Structure formats: structure tokens, C-alpha cells
């Protein structure tokens, strides 16, 4: 059973690499680049996100690509830790706060956020260092990122429940539409597996409150005051996850009803709503499994039995290996972050769509085989039929950007070149440092 589930790692890695190469090619290819700053920046951020996914998977699958904590010098281990955190948090924060219509509008605001995040990382790491006194669970960086999630959520939620009329071409409507669409896509891309704690937060169960990283051991190690700090931080983090998922769940139902009543246009928001409801089904199932003991996980959320392995594969695995890279692709193409123009571009997109279809089929059949042992031959016939009926065409249609998404934009109110280089260096340098330290040590 585990062998089948292990295949998901390989499929997910190959899919991520493939989509990464695809977006990178269109983003970096030589020639005149007519894209506006937000599309270039958006494409860069999606590439950094995919690189983060790929490196993380690589360092799990091939430990030699990661730093060896037993033999490497502690200084390098520490630098690698900082680099990894900076890479992760900068990528996610800028994806939520910088594009397409920026919340950070001055270079100093970007720099200030960067410094603030660095200080937060330092505080978090110092609090759990081996010689820390007091030793407590600090999650300040997560609090920052969840605050950004709230901003992104408000934008997406506003669009989900109250989208501007489709024929409204006013600048406000254009801004609300573009930012709303993008926010929904970004939320889907950066979702963490902690969304599966949405019910546990309200129910007060251990799958939310006593599962790392939200474990409050600070009372035992540092006393009451630090326990309160940790409790406030973890409540904020879990609360945002729960609040966002519940609100999106209700918003999705509302949007679908309004779409059926033809009061909301059927759009990417409808796809997002369907995805959210699917995720909610998984959330409910996983929470039920935890509460009833049908499946058990340890405090690090590692599966402890066969049922937990399958449910983890269905929820975490499915999201990490298939949904996130696929949505990253959708994000890049749908919002015109990369330009698909010529006949040749279309052919490449078709090839990628076919590969994504193959990956979707592979992941589904892998999961299906684990749950219900179906002969490979039957699966092959079903897959052949699915692929032969031209489903990749539907995927390509879904990827096709709206005209408005390709053309409307807002100018960066400052030195665009400096901002673009600055953000890329802020993310890129930690990534390269982490990669090099991992390979060398």
C-alpha cells in the first residue's frame, strides 16, 4: 500500500518540474517582453513557489540534496534554516501582497516587511534553539503570514459573494474583478494542510490544538507568560485557517446558488467554489476519522495506521502533489502572467495540458488502487477512454485567459525595475543559499 502512495511523491515532483519548466520558458524566453510589471512579477513569484515545492520534495526524496544535520557545521545548519524560512515566507507574502494590485506600494514598505519577517524568523528560531532560555514555541512568522492571508481572503471573499457585474467596465469594477480573481487563485495555490484543522479549532480537539506546529509546550518549559504568548499566536493561526475556510465554504455555496439563479456569472470563482466544497468534504472526513479513531496520526501529523496513510494521501498528498502545481499553472496562464500567443505557444500549452491530464489520471488511479484494488487493465481502459475523448481540450479552454485578464493592469508607482530586482533577489538569494548548502553539506 505504501509503495502505491510513495508513487505520489514521484508523480508530484515530475509534474511540478514540468510545469516549472513550462512557465520558466515563457517567462524567461528571449525577445521583446510586452508584459506589464505585475505579470512579470506574478510569473516570477509562481516560479519561486514551484522551485520551493520542487526543492522541498527533492530534499525529502533525495536526502543528499539537503543539509546533513549530523555532520554539517552548526553555522551552516543555522544559515540554511534562515535561508529556507526567508525563501518560504517572502514568496508567499509577496504573492499575496504584491500582485496584481499591490498592497505594498512603496519600496520601503517591501524592505520593511522583509526586515520585519527576518526579525520574526530570528525570534522564532532563537526561542527553540537548543540553549534557549526561555525555551518556548514562538510562531511570530506564521502570524505575519496569516495576517497577509486575511487580506488576501477579504479580497477573494468579497469577489466570491459580491462580484461586479460582468458588463461593468468601470475602473473600480476592473480592479475588483482582477484582484478578486487573483486572490482566489492565490489562496488556492498557497493553501496549507492546516486547513484540515478548521473543525478541530472550534471543537477543541487535538488534531488542531495538539499537533505541530501548533503545540503549546511553552507553559511547561517557560512558564505562564510565555504560554500565553504561544496561545495567542496559535489561536490566531488556527483561527484564521478556520475562519477563512468556513467563510469560503459558505461563500462558495452562496456563489453556486447565485450562479444557478444566473445572478453571478459562471467563472473561475465557480471553479474555486467547487474546489472549496471538495476540500470541505475532505476536511469533514479527515476530522471524523480523527475523532472516531478510524485513523490515527501522531503529534507531527504522521500517519500511524493504514487508514491514516490513505486519508493523508487523499488530503495532503492530493493537494501537494496535484492541486498546487496544477493551480500554479492555471494561475500563470489564466491571469496572463505568461503570454501564449503564437501557434507554437499553443502547441506547447497543449502538450503541457496533456501532461497535466496524465498526471491527474496517474494520481487518481494511484489513490483509487490503494482504496479499491482495481486491475490495472481496467484502469488503463478507463484512462484511455478519458484521454481519447479530448478532455485536454476542456483543460486548455479553462486555461485560456479572459481578454480583460490579459490587457488590464495598473502601473507600479515607483521604480519598477528596482522593485522587480529587489523582490527577486530577496527570494532568490535565500533559495540559492539553501540549495548550495544542501548540496555541499
Amino acid at each position, binding site marked *: 500500500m505504501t509503495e502505491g502512495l510513495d508513487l505520489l511523491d514521484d508523480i508530484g515532483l515530475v509534474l511540478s518540474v514540468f510545469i516549472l519548466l513550462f512557465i520558466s520558458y515563457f517567462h524567461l524566453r528571449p525577445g521583446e517582453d*510586452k508584459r*506589464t*510589471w505585475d505579470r512579470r512579477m506574478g510569473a516570477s513569484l509562481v516560479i519561486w513557489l514551484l522551485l520551493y515545492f520542487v526543492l522541498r520534495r527533492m530534499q525529502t526524496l533525495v536526502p543528499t540534496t539537503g543539509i546533513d544535520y549530523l555532520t554539517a557545521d552548526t553555522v551552516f545548519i543555522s544559515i540554511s534554516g534562515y535561508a529556507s524560512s526567508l525563501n518560504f515566507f517572502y514568496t508567499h507574502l509577496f504573492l499575496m501582497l504584491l500582485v496584481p*494590485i*499591490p*498592497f505594498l*506600494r512603496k519600496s520601503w514598505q517591501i524592505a520593511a516587511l522583509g526586515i520585519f519577517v527576518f526579525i520574526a524568523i530570528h525570534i522564532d528560531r532563537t526561542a527553540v534553539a537548543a540553549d534557549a532560555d526561555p525555551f518556548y514555541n514562538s510562531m511570530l512568522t506564521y502570524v505575519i503570514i496569516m495576517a497577509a492571508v*486575511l*487580506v488576501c481572503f*477579504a*479580497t477573494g*471573499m*468579497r469577489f466570491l459573494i*459580491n462580484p461586479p457585474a460582468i458588463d461593468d*467596465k*468601470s*475602473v*473600480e469594477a*476592473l*480592479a*475588483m474583478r482582477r*484582484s478578486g480573481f487573483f486572490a482566489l487563485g492565490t489562496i488556492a495555490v498557497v493553501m496549507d494542510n492546516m486547513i484540515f484543522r478548521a473543525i478541530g*479549532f*472550534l471543537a*477543541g480537539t487535538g488534531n488542531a490544538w495538539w499537533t505541530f506546529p501548533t503545540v*503549546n509546550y511553552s*507553559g*511547561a*518549559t*517557560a*512558564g*505562564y*507568560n510565555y*504560554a500565553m504568548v504561544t*496561545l495567542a499566536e496559535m*489561536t490566531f493561526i*488556527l*483561527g484564521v485557517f*478556520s*475562519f477563512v475556510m468556513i*467563510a469560503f465554504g459558505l461563500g462558495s455555496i452562496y456563489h453556486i446558488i447565485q450562479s444557478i439563479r444566473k445572478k453571478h456569472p*459562471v467563472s473561475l470563482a465557480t471553479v474555486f467554489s467547487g474546489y472549496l466544497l471538495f476540500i470541505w468534504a475532505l476536511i469533514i472526513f479527515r476530522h471524523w476519522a480523527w475523532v472516531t479513531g478510524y485513523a490515527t496520526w501522531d503529534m507531527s501529523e504522521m500517519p500511524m495506521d493504514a487508514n491514516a496513510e490513505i486519508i493523508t494521501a487523499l488530503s495532503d498528498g492530493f493537494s501537494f502533489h496535484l492541486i498546487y502545481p496544477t493551480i500554479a499553472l492555471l494561475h500563470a496562464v489564466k491571469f496572463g502572467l505568461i503570454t501564449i500567443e503564437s501557434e507554437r505557444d499553443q502547441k506547447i500549452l497543449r502538450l503541457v495540458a496533456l501532461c497535466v491530464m496524465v498526471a491527474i489520471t496517474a494520481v487518481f488511479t494511484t489513490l483509487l488502487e490503494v482504496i479499491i484494488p482495481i486491475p490495472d487493465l481496467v484502469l488503463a481502459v478507463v484512462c484511455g477512454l478519458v484521454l481519447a475523448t479530448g478532455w485536454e*481540450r476542456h483543460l486548455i*479552454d*479553462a486555461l*485560456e485567459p*479572459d*481578454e*480583460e485578464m*490579459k*490587457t*488590464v*493592469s*495598473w*502601473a*507600479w*508607482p*515607483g*521604480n*519598477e525595475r528596482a522593485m522587480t530586482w529587489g523582490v527577486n533577489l530577496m527570494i532568490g538569494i535565500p533559495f540559492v543559499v539553501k540549495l548550495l548548502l544542501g548540496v555541499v553539506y
Partner: protein
Amino acid sequence: MRTEKDLMNLKKDELIEIAKSLNIDTSGTKAELTTRILASEVQPAGEAGQDFDEATESKIDIESSDATMSGEEGIIEDESENSGEASVESSAESSQDIIFDELPSRWLIAGGLRPVPYLSTLAVVFILMFTYGFNDFYSVQYAVEGSDKEYIDCARITYHSLGDGNTTDYDPTNQANIDCAELLGISPNWWQEDMDAWLQSMLDSVSGNGNETGFIWTQVGIDTMAYLGASTFNANMSVYGDPIAGDEFTEQDLAIWNGYTATMGGGNDTIEDLLVGGGSPFAIYMPMGIVDYKPTGFLWTQAGIDTMAYLGASTFNTNMSVFGDPSNGDVFTAQHLAVWNGFAAAFPGGGTDTYEDLLPSGGSPFAIYMPQGIVEHAPTGYFWSHPGVPTMAYLGSSTFGANMSVFADPAPGDVFTAQHLAVWNGFTLQMGGGNDTIADLLPGGASPFAIYMPSGIVITEAEWTNQTPSVSNVTVEVNGTTNTTMFSCGYIFSDAQGDSDNSTIIWFINNSYAANTSTYSANLTNGTTIACMVTPYDGLYWGVSIESQDHLILATED
């Protein structure tokens, strides 16, 4: 007139063809194409494009295909001077970028046209959820009668700091710990008490079930008990089931013994009290004891005792008393193994070791912490012989379909254990054998397979010692010359069979390997040390290597 449904049922290529025929934009999804076609059929083609309202148009810059952005100011510069108005009219058709130079407010992006009620509602709901979550967890984890802060801080001191023996701060007699323990209503020494209880429960749990006590009758014990029965208790050995040496000394046997001695001031002995030097009040009447540990085939080694003592002190928070303070050569009993596994079970992968896993290079997950192992094979009086190892390897591969790993890859001189004999008999059982004793495997032994092993498999311990050559009095001898000093290694070679001396010599300079010649010549500087090591060899058997004392080079030798 086509309806929306008609159009949506068409393929995208067909929609593109229709759009081309209507001279409208052919890009976009099927839904967009359908909308555009329907719109073009109710208004002229030129009006079907993207029409922004007047207010919007006033805020936008429309970038033609060759428009560039100023890097310094971020202001749109349209290098194509006459493309402006024309581009507005045909923007939808030519995919031109429409770039607004004034960013919309953050309130509009996050909150829409009515941000205050919308964002306020979200904020209130979130604050309520946050408050609920915080209070829910707090009430379960931190709310106590009295001061929550004082209680939690005390819990840290007593359970995780001064009162916790696993921390470096451990100091149960510290006043702060005593005060906090009182507040918490526990003993300030709770950790040690818990550890003691745990150890006791573990020892209790590994005790025998009455039939597997881990102790056996000894012959001297049987004789002693028979004498005591006849002289004192008016009973013969039938009350114990007439045991013979090596039989299990059961809990029932112990109960009978205690029953007899209860009337004479005893009655509370454990089986350990009946060992040699045990604590029984009647020990004086049974100086050789009654029982002995049941052999397991494994003995404690001194290295094992030292290692276990270190692990106990550093890791398991205990001392060797849990193993009954064993000495080198004592039986490593089933109870010892159970205690070890009880400790190791607290660590990942531990708790399932066998005796073999505790041998040097054994399979224990903790092998890295005990490179010399904990135990050794108990002597059986027989060793693997030099011809025995290759003979068994040949028989294994040619006849039994097994390699020497089933015997744990022994070397000549290793103990031929009872387990090895069992493996051998297991192989030969299906071929008419299966009842050999170890002695049957000696050269010319009684094994039905003796014909296949004319030199035997094993050698007796005495024979091994007799055949193995030895050396003694190993010393470095100096033969000085003017320029170079030649060193030779002096020793006394002994071999019971009088075989010739084929011993090898290795030289060490300053404790580092230097040469393996019979003599060593060099002009060594003052302060250098030289030593030699002799490995006795009579052409057939290798003996135990003996190293000389270090010889220090002094100025007078130059």
C-alpha cells in the same frame, strides 16, 4: 437568430469561424466567444468591442504594441503618438494593454465599494472566533482554582525543571520545588518515586510465571535439600517431583520450601535467596546454594557490564542493581534480557532484542553504543575447528542449501554453541540424522555424517588450547652499530606438539605500524619508542598475539 444554448453546443473551432465571419475578436473562451457573437448580432461589429465608460477612459493609458514603461518614474510613455484614440476603439480586438496609472485604494481592493460594513463584519466574526478559541483552550488547560499563573509556573518548576530528574536543573530539595510541590499536592521527590515504581513494575512484569522462573536445580542443591528434608523437614524429594540437576526450580518449589521454613523463622525467601551466598536465613545450611541461573548460552562480559553501567547512568536513570549487579562470566539471564528490552522499548526501534543482538556487532539498534557487545557465548567445551569451518561451509552449500550465516559466520576458535548444534541437527534430521551431540562432531565422531567430515567440525576446548601455540617474554633487543641500530624481537615460543615456530612479528614506532620484518633497522632519534608484537603460528594454528613493552631510545644508544 442563434441562441446562447445553440452556440455553446458548437465546438470552439466553429465558434471561431463564426466570429471571423462577423469580423470580431476570435480570442477567449467558448463562453466569451458566445457572448461576443450574440452581442455582434444585435449591434454592428464595430461596437462589439470592450467599451469602457467615459469616467474610466479618462483614467487610463492605453499601451500600443510598441509602448514602453519608464523605468524611473513608472509612468506610461506611449511612443506611438497617433495610436491613442484608435487603440481605445479597437482595444478588445488587438489585445492592447490598458494600464491605469493610479492604483485603486486598498479599501476598494479588500472591501469593495462598501468596505466599512464588509470588513467590519469580517473583523467582528474573526474576533469572536479568536476569543472563543482562546478561552476554550485556556479553560481546559490553564484555568485552576486560585492563581492560574502561580499554578502554571509551579507546574513548570516541579514537573519540568527542579523536580524533573531528566533535566540538568534537577534539585528536588530546592525550596522552590518543595513549595511548588505542596501547591500542586504532590511529593517534591515525585520523579524518583515514579522511576522506582516503574523499575519495580518492570522487574515484576518480567518475573517468571511459575514454570519459567529462570532458575534451575543444581546437583549440590538437590543433595542439600534431600539432606535437609530427611534431617529436618521429614520429607523426601518426591514433594518436589524428584528433580534432577538442570530442572526448572518453579514457584511451586519455592512455595514448598517457604512452607517448611515458615515454622522455623523463615518463609519469606525469594528464589534469589537460594543462590550461592543468597539471603536466606538458612544460607548457613546450604553454602553451595540450592539453585542456579538457568543457562541461556550467554554470559556477561566485563566490557558489557561497563557499557551497561554507563548506559544506565547516562540514559536509563538506573544502576546495575536492576541486573542483580552481575560479574564477568555470570549468566545473562532471560530476566536480564527482559530488563534490557524494557529500557530499550522507550526508544524508537528498541525493545525486541534477542541475546544474539547483544553480542559484539549484534543487530541491536543500540549496537553503535556498545561496540564490544554486552554478552558472549557461554562455553560449551567445544570450539569451531580450523577444518570445521570450511567443511561446514562446503556441506551447507552442497547439501543443505545454506551458507554460514545460519551459524552467524563463525571463525575457528569461536564457541560451538547449543544453538549451532540445533541448526546442524535441523539440517541432518531430514537425512536420517538429527540426534548428534557436540561430541559426535569431533574428528572420528559418532555422527552418521562423519564420513563427510573426516577432520570433524569441532575441537574440544582442551585440545584447542593444547594445539594453539603461544609466546611469552616478548622484548625488544638492541644491537647497536655506529650508524644504524638493528632491533630484534626476543620471545619464547611454546607448542605442545613441538611444531616449528612460524610466528610473525610486527614493529611499531611511536605506537604506529612501521614494518612486519623479523628485525628492524633504523637510526632512531632520542625519545622515540619502539615495540614489537609477536603472533604465534605453528604452521597450522594461530595463537594469541603478545606485544612487548615500549622500548625508549635514549642518547646513549645512538
